[in-house]
């Protein structure tokens, strides 16, 4: 009697001591099944998916070639022009041109052009997908409650974990790099578009309703214009996060400033790493300042300074 109780006690202790996990064999089969299923999936659908991304690849390559083919003075003029158009600041434009000249002088011109091509395409893609998604989210609480956790996952999941299936599907190359960048850089665009539209003054929206505006007129006439400061903050954040992904993207075969950084890490080339790293920082600062100033300029009507 006593010994039976004792052995029951020991079993209980066993139960509480180790977590009642799956048997090792089951677990292995489980993992193999998933791996196998995905491998089959990528074998049968890989080409179709690759074909789906072909236009994107084509565009990215064209842009990169164009940037590389253009004589450097032309690029400098374009950089200065865009900076001035965006920020209306001579100081910033001159600063941008100087940084580009330094980048070129230290032999990083071509890598920089590749990186700019990647960032531009990634940002365009993020805006093209992220903005409609954000608008949809703002219109429905249900959609918001579904998309928000997805965005949380996109921002927190270790990059290599989602790189793996992408690589299995598409192999090493520019497109998987672009996808990796977008997965990481898109969430702020979606979130801030959603936020911006939700924060639109209810009174103004009511006025639009009272004048009989339909949902299209409300969206383009009231909601998007009034949400622009937040949408611009979203674009700005997207660019910053895309730049932060340049080194990771280079690990899966995207050309650009990330490659030398990677070499520097592997070979302990301090100067190389520092120079290319600083080039990325330089690009980031230029993009950031120009886009922020542009966003602010859109908001000038909000200030009431020249009161008559």
């Amino acid at each position: 009697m006593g010994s039976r109780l004792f052995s029951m006690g020991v079993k209980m202790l066993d139960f509480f001591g180790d977590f009642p996990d799956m048997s090792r064999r089951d677990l292995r089969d489980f993992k193999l099944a998933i791996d196998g299923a995905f491998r089959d999936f990528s074998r049968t659908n890989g080409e179709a998916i690759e074909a789906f991304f072909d236009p994107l690849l084509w565009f990215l390559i064209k842009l990169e070639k164009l940037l590389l083919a253009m004589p450097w003075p032309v690029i400098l003029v374009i950089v200065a022009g865009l900076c001035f158009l965006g920020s209306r600041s001579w100081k910033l434009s001159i600063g941008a041109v100087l940084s580009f000249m330094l980048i070129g002088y230290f032999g990083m011109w071509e890598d920089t052009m590749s990186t700019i091509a990647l960032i531009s395409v990634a940002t365009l893609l993020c805006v093209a997908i992220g903005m409609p998604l954000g608008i949809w989210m703002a219109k429905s609480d249900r959609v918001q409650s579904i998309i928000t956790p997805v965005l949380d996952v996109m921002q927190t999941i270790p990059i290599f974990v989602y790189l793996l299936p992408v690589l299995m599907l598409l192999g090493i190359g520019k497109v998987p790099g672009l996808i990796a960048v977008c997965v990481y850089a898109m969430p702020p665009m979606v979130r801030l578009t959603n936020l911006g539209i939700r924060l639109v003054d209810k009174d103004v929206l009511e006025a639009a309703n009272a004048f009989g505006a339909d949902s299209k007129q409300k969206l383009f006439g009231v909601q998007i214009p009034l949400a622009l400061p937040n949408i611009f903050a979203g674009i700005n954040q997207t660019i910053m996060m895309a730049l932060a992904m340049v080194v990771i993207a280079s690990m899966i075969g995207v050309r650009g400033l990330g490659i030398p950084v990677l070499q520097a890490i592997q070979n302990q080339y301090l100067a190389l790493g520092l120079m290319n790293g600083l080039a990325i920082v330089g690009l980031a600062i230029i993009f950031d300042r120009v886009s922020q100033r542009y966003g602010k300029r859109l908001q000038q009507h909000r200030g009431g300074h020249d009161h008559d």
Partner: protein
Amino acid sequence: MTDIKIKIENLFKVFGNRPHEMMSLVRDGVSKQALLDDHKHVLGLTDINISIPAKRIHVIMGLSGSGKSTLIRHINRLIEPTDGRVVVDGEDVMAMSELELKEFRRFKASMVFQKFALLPHRTVAQNVAYGLSIQGVDEGEAFERSQRWLERVGLAGFEKHFPAQLSGGMQQRVGLARALATDAEILLMDEAFSALDPLIRNDMQNILLDLQQELHKTIVFITHDLDEALRIGDQISILRDGAVIQDGDPQDIIMNPADDYIADFIKDINRGRVIKVSTLMTKASRASGPKFEESALLEDALKVMNEQNSDSAAIVDSKGKVVGKISLKDAIRAMARPDREAAGTRYK
């Protein structure tokens, strides 16, 4: 009697998760407080019946929480009622399809808001043209038409300014011009002047009264300010706790308050500036003393009677024919604060 433009019939509004289930309780006479305590529903409007005449200014007055802003939003259906009808020109607004409602809001009823609700990213001219651009009027014509209204409200020269660059009074002029520019027959004004300081408010009331002289729109005007209501209203409905407690013209309300609540309301009013001599007159074809038109204010009449040391005055119509008379005694009595019974017997 003038035509009825807007007829609100048995309108109820219950706020909450299951408003329709609450309707039977409301009809059984469950009080607002009981509905809130026992069922967590808020009774916004209770059995509202108002007839709003065409081409007049109908004021709906009430303190905050009385449901007046909720009520005006039922007229263009920015808020859906729980029960009841709003009939405009014989057509039930509540039965309109989405498309019909849009047309109704675009062409038939425009609105002015307490907080102006201008589009901050559009210039003054673009704001005034907003209703027209929603209607689909092409840009050139819209600007031309809105320019007229901008001038009419005294904002010529400010076309290119943004709303944030204007003072509150000027912003509300933009709001008014925006509402007028659509040429809607009905103008809904939700506490339109309440956010303005008293002098500017007075200016805006003058602008509105001037415009009304030539435009003859059907105006529904919401306010919490009795002075404002008496000044601009052809007709006043007083709202309390979501129910209409008195409906009448300003003279009616000031001479004949329906209950102590309203009597209390009007006790601080300068009666001499509201009461017209015609309200006090007794019919007569001959009378001695100074002559006054029917619309003359008691205050002015008393001043003249006092100066001329006259015990009575004659009331004449627009052709100068004597239609009635008032005595000094009646005039002084009317100036005194409400003595409801006494006032009631004298009026009409």
